[in-house]
């Protein structure tokens, strides 16, 4: 398949690994964060980290939207799902994210009408097909999924679909990166920038990272050669004393992003003053809510929800994993009490969560290495 097969070529991968080895300085340790959960997944799936020199360490970032949603928001969703007459819709992974009293999947088993959808457009269709029911869409995701929600809300308003509403949990990528860069816990040398978030926001918003923090950023695609090339580009910047935003993923990511997407998002959403991120705490202006023009479609105004902050389980170390302070296998409950089938923490829920990705792929290589 064009644009896929050539980015999985083993010989090219080995050649790139050789170039990376020739670029690094012995005696120096490099920490590179892949911001996005999609990159984390690819790194473990294809064994990208096995091709790197020992002194190049990949640190997994907070770019998995399922992983950063706090338990209190899940509880709010479950409370709304139990309201009489409600059809509650959400993406697949969201069904298994634990709240304080279980998951949406378990609420469904207890009788709530909760349905998995592929897109918000499917939820709107359900609303049109069920005019006597209230259809609520639990929106989640970074700037990749936010335009989809925005377009659907604009469509619902234009078509006068009054039994449709949205719980908006959309988050934005730049504020958590600022928070991470200001965290004393972490020393990073560079960032692999998110590929598909950048199709919407462009590469420009990441310029604060080299400008204010002196770290290189390379926006990258998701195939193994994309990631290897991005790592090589970061290492070349470090070797040459350069510090800038580069775009490895030019075949998909325009520098300016998608202006139509940014326009519809600014019409439908506005920034929340602050929002809680699992493991990272409250981050100001890091999430979206519906703008005043779309308040009629805001499920948080239409229904009452607890709105209570819930602390993570004590055993769960998702916070440290999300900040890259510990590796998934260093969490006390990894692979024992916390597995993809029975997740305690959100990082074990989504395939793009660092723990689930490592559990599904990386642990076998590590077990072999230990043996």
């Amino acid at each position: 398949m064009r644009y896929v097969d050539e980015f999985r070529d083993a010989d090219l991968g080995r050649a790139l690994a050789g170039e990376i080895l020739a670029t690094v300085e012995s005696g120096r340790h490099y920490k590179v964060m892949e911001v996005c959960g999609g990159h984390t997944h690819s790194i473990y799936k294809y064994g990208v980290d096995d091709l790197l020199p020992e002194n190049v360490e990949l640190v997994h970032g907070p770019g998995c939207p399922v992983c950063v949603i706090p338990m209190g928001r899940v509880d709010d969703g479950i409370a709304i799902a139990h309201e009489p007459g409600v059809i509650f819709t959400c993406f697949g992974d969201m069904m298994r994210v634990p709240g304080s009293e279980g998951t949406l999947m378990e609420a469904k088993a207890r009788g709530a009408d909760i349905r998995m959808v592929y897109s918000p457009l499917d939820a709107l269709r359900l609303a049109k097909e069920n005019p006597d029911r209230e259809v609520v869409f639990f929106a989640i995701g970074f700037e990749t999924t936010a335009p989809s929600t925005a377009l659907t809300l604009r469509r619902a308003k234009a078509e006068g679909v009054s039994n449709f509403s949205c719980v908006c949990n959309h988050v934005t990528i730049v504020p958590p990166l600022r928070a991470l860069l200001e965290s004393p816990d972490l020393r990073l040398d560079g960032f692999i920038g998110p590929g598909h978030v950048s199709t919407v926001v462009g590469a420009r918003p990441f310029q604060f990272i080299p400008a204010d923090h002196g770290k290189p950023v390379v926006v990258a695609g998701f195939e193994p050669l994309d990631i290897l090339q991005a790592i090589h580009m970061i290492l070349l910047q470090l070797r040459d004393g350069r510090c800038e935003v580069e775009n490895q993923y030019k075949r998909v990511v325009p520098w300016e992003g998608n202006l139509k997407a940014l326009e519809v998002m600014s019409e439908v959403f506005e920034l929340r003053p602050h929002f809680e991120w699992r493991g990272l705490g409250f981050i100001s202006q890091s999430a979206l809510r519906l703008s005043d023009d779309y308040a009629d479609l805001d499920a948080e105004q239409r229904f009452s929800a607890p709105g209570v902050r819930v602390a993570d389980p004590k055993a769960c170390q998702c916070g440290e994993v999300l900040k890259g302070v510990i590796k998934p296998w260093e969490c006390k409950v990894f692979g024992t009490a916390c597995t993809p089938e029975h997740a305690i923490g959100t990082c074990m829920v989504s395939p793009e969560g660092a723990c689930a990705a490592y559990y599904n792929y990386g642990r076998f290589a590590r077990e072999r290495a230990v043996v």
Partner: protein
Amino acid sequence: MAEHSPAACFDDHCITCGDEGIAMQVVAVDEVRGLALCEEPEGARSTIEIGLVDAAPGDRLLVHAGTALVRLESA
């Protein structure tokens, strides 16, 4: 016509939640409604929102959560 199964979210990758989208090919365009029938490489078809891109039959689009975010270079 093979319809997309939302259960795919439980498989290898969640295309709706994560950063990674999928490439789909436009089969037919409904310009009035701003929608297109699109096909995944494996043959599954879905109705896709195309309000953010200029799309014509045969184009390849990067799709996230049922919305096309960018038109890819033609294959």
